[in-house]
């Protein structure tokens, strides 16, 4: 049943948000600490359990994969609701701080990516899965 997948996803998201809020209160800060991350770890764990028990039916997977696939459109909608006008008008200090920060961070990512030795790329990962006769872990690249 597709709704089981959607319900499972909703439950994980809600539990994650709750635990994130509680963690925030425990640490004395007015913010959700890693709620989405906790929810993701929870969903990953439940997926492994379901596979082991043989309960991961096609409908359940579809109910979750559907929302994962809708993610890019959601991001486009999110981009369309940013305060772009405000950010552009805010003056040179804002622009300098943001541009320098982003440039420096991009640089460090490039550096760290070269430090650690070669890693299997997503394309290689999917190719290996296909060789081993398993379905690719990930959806299409688009």
């Amino acid at each position, binding site marked *: 049943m597709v709704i089981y997948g959607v319900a499972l*996803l909703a439950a*994980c*998201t809600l539990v*994650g948000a709750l635990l994130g809020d509680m963690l*925030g209160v425990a*640490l004395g800060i*007015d*913010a959700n600490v*890693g*709620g*989405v991350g906790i929810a*993701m*770890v929870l*969903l*990953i764990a439940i*997926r*492994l359990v379901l596979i082991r028990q043989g309960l991961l039916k096609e409908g359940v997977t579809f109910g*979750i*994969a559907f929302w*994962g696939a*809708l*993610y*890019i*459109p*959601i*991001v*486009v*909608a*999110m*981009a*369309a*609701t*940013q*305060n*772009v006008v405000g950010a*552009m008008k*805010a003056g040179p*200090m*804002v622009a300098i*701080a*943001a*541009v*320098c*920060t982003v440039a*420096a*961070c*991009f640089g460090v*990512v490039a550096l*760290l*990516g*070269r430090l650690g030795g070669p*890693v299997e*790329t*997503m*394309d290689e*990962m*999917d190719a290996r899965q296909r060789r081993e006769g398993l379905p690719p*872990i990930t*959806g299409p*690249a688009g």
Partner: protein
Amino acid sequence: MLTAFALVGLVMGLSAVASRYLTFGRIHGSAIAVLAGLMLAWLGGTMTGGTHGLADIPMLSGIGIMGGAMLRDFGIVATAFEVDMAKAKAAGLYGALGLLIGLVLPFTIGVLVAAAYGYTDAISLTTIGAGAITYIVGPVTGAALGANSEVMAIAIAIGVLKAILVMAGTPFLAKVMKLDNSRSAMVFGGLMATTSGVSGGLAATDRRLIPYGALTATFSTGLGCLFGPSVLFLIVRAITGE
């Protein structure tokens, strides 16, 4: 909300066509769609004078729900279904390193720029520095420290601009950053910190990378809110002496 689905579908369709015929597939359709979204946000903001981009146009308010925090988080969690746990574990150390640098580096740059523009008090410096982490960390830190509203607005603006730059810039710099594997995606997520910027940027690059980047990015805001008003503020105050 239905109008939003139809409109976003249209934007994505047009972007896919533009990607194929105008850039011959060199620029990903999703990247063009995200950029188009940002341009529409600018258009909406200019037309209405509001702060929520296209969502300020009453007919298109549904886009605010579709792009809001609830559906965004729901979608990110769903992408976790595609995570290869062994990969995530193997990259754990790099992800943690990325998280740490992602707090300290933007903060330091933010504080230095603020100092260059004549801010000398520890509260303003810390708030602006925190804004360079994300647009949530900035105001949370500022509110905790009692910063004035002008400084808070600057901190938010830096964070928003950072998110926009990350969204727009990532697909073009992905090759240089070797952003083609789960490990670099986790480093990237922690370093960029801004969940919306990271998820937008990765969506426009390769959607298979989203869960790995999001996994670390979602912890950055929490960590920033934790360290901004405490450790980072104390360090800044120790240096400024106020």
